[in-house]
């Protein structure tokens, strides 16, 4: 079982939850008010798309039935992770997807 693919599923699920979160008015105002307001309405569709992508990636890692179980577990856990990161380390919470992508790319080149 590929570790990097597992990390990728988690990161994509996390990014999806982050996008869904920013799509909510309260969180948008608090975390992303510097960005153009019109962007906000793209957040939720993007989040749903990313969550779907996470499901697709999970299916590469597990057989179909197991993939759904893992997907539900991972989006729950990543959502909770996001929830606790937001108040304690808001910058990290927002930049985690980018950081993770960079790490994955570095990892891919390394291997």
């Amino acid at each position, binding site marked *: 079982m590929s570790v990097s693919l597992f990390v990728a599923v988690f990161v994509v699920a996390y990014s999806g939850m982050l996008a869904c979160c920013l799509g909510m008015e309260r969180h948008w105002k608090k975390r992303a008010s510097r960005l153009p307001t019109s962007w906000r309405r793209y957040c939720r569709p993007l989040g749903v798309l990313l969550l779907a992508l996470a499901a697709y990636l999970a299916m590469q890692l597990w057989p179909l039935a197991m993939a759904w179980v893992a997907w539900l577990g991972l989006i729950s856990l990543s959502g909770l992770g996001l*929830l606790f990161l937001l108040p304690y380390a808001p910058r990290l919470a927002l930049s985690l997807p980018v950081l993770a992508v960079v790490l994955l790319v570095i990892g891919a080149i390394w291997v």
Partner: protein
Amino acid sequence: MAKQASVTQSMSGLHTWAGLIVGWLLFAIFLTGTLAVFDKELNWWMQPELHDTGLDQVSAVRVAESWLRERNPDASAWNIGLPTERGPSLSVSSGEQRRGQRTQLDADSGEVVVPRETLGGNFFFHFHYTLHMPRSIGIWVVGFAAMAMLVAIISGVIIHKKIFKDFFTFRPAKGQRSWLDGHNASAVLLLPFHLMITYTGLAIFFLIYMPAATDVLYGGDREALFSELRPGNEQQVERAGRAGEGGRAPRAEVPAAQMLPLEQFIGRGEAYYGEDMLGSLSVSNPDRANARVEVRPVMGTRLELTKGESLVFNAITGEVVGAPQPTRTTLLTQKVMAGLHFAQFGGYAMRWIYFLCGLISCAMIASGLVLYTVKRRRQVKSDTRWLRQAEWLNVAVIGGLMFACTALLWGNRMLPANMAERELWELRVFFGGWLLALVHARLRAPLRAWAEQLTLIALLLLAMPVLDMLLAPKALDGLRLSVDASAAAMGLILGWAAWRVVCQPQAVKKTAGETKKIRTSRTGVTS
């Protein structure tokens, strides 16, 4: 409008009482269940005499076969527990598998290894569904708690006022607000898990909890039910496989015959179940004309719980004489639910997902219990006597059980390896530790009790890698180091929690001030 409010209120009351009364039980069930996700790994950790020789299953079978042929050529059956990813040990036994004492072998030298007696990770697994009570009583108590958990989950969803608005909201360092946020968030975000694990837990023992249908349709005869549920009669095939074609003929009457080398059956079993998916291999009537080889997979080849499934070969010719039949849909439904609960599928990644989700369930239950006391403290009318009971019981159960589990792991390393009745002593360490924590929680002021117990547990967990290096340095391998590292990680989290409790002078003063206010207002009323 008025009716709406009363529904919410009554649900709120239901949630509080369903949650509080069984909350302590639920915490114990969930914590041990979470630890039981890694039961085999803990088994391995708790027997440091065994070491991973890294031998593949084919060679391991060769070692085991020659050992068994040399010591027990006339046994009615040979059983070989194969080294697997989760427990790289090789064990053998002869005779009926259930009764036979398992002997551990060193896979390299083929010599007998005598590991320490231990409760192992199995203890957490059994405690999870029996609470260490007599099995039938324990299952009922746990079932009652699980029903109350379902009630608490559903009523909790009903009384949650802003389930979507507060979806990602957590406001730390705000006393009751933060506790409520944390409780809500861990409950809402993991709602699928909470519901699934509670419901499937109940579904495992459906025959015990809901026997009415079996009683009416089968006169209470479970065997009759099961033979209809399994039309392929897997059991009969198995039984025939075990007894051999000659039925139950005495061993001596069956002529001797040359068996195929047992190691061949590993490859053939793997072809059926997948690579690294075999858990054990057994032979009935070894070296006789009616010899049968049975290979069993480790659980988790699919979602369905496949306990007891096997593939049976004729040991002389090598042909397949019994393969598992596809499960009938009705039974499959139940077995998939049981499989979802047992979490044996999907490898280590899935195991970690379940473990983390389980930990968050524990945190959710614990935060609910604490929230009750935090809330009560602020209510002027609250009965302080009951509040005081809830406060110390919280520490005694949440802190106490975590301490007891940690003590059990420490006890495993500290008690002499060759001690008589060692398992009993480990049990004494576990319950003794819990009792001490209980007394401590009763005697100390709540916040102080929390701080002291959390600090102690955190230190003990953090020191586990050190303990392991000092007391069992030779046994350190990847698996055991992972157990140590995970323990230390949990130590860090609990240490952080302890630090939060200690370093909150403001919050402490605030609550102390409030209780004072409560007291004065009370005395004011009475005078």
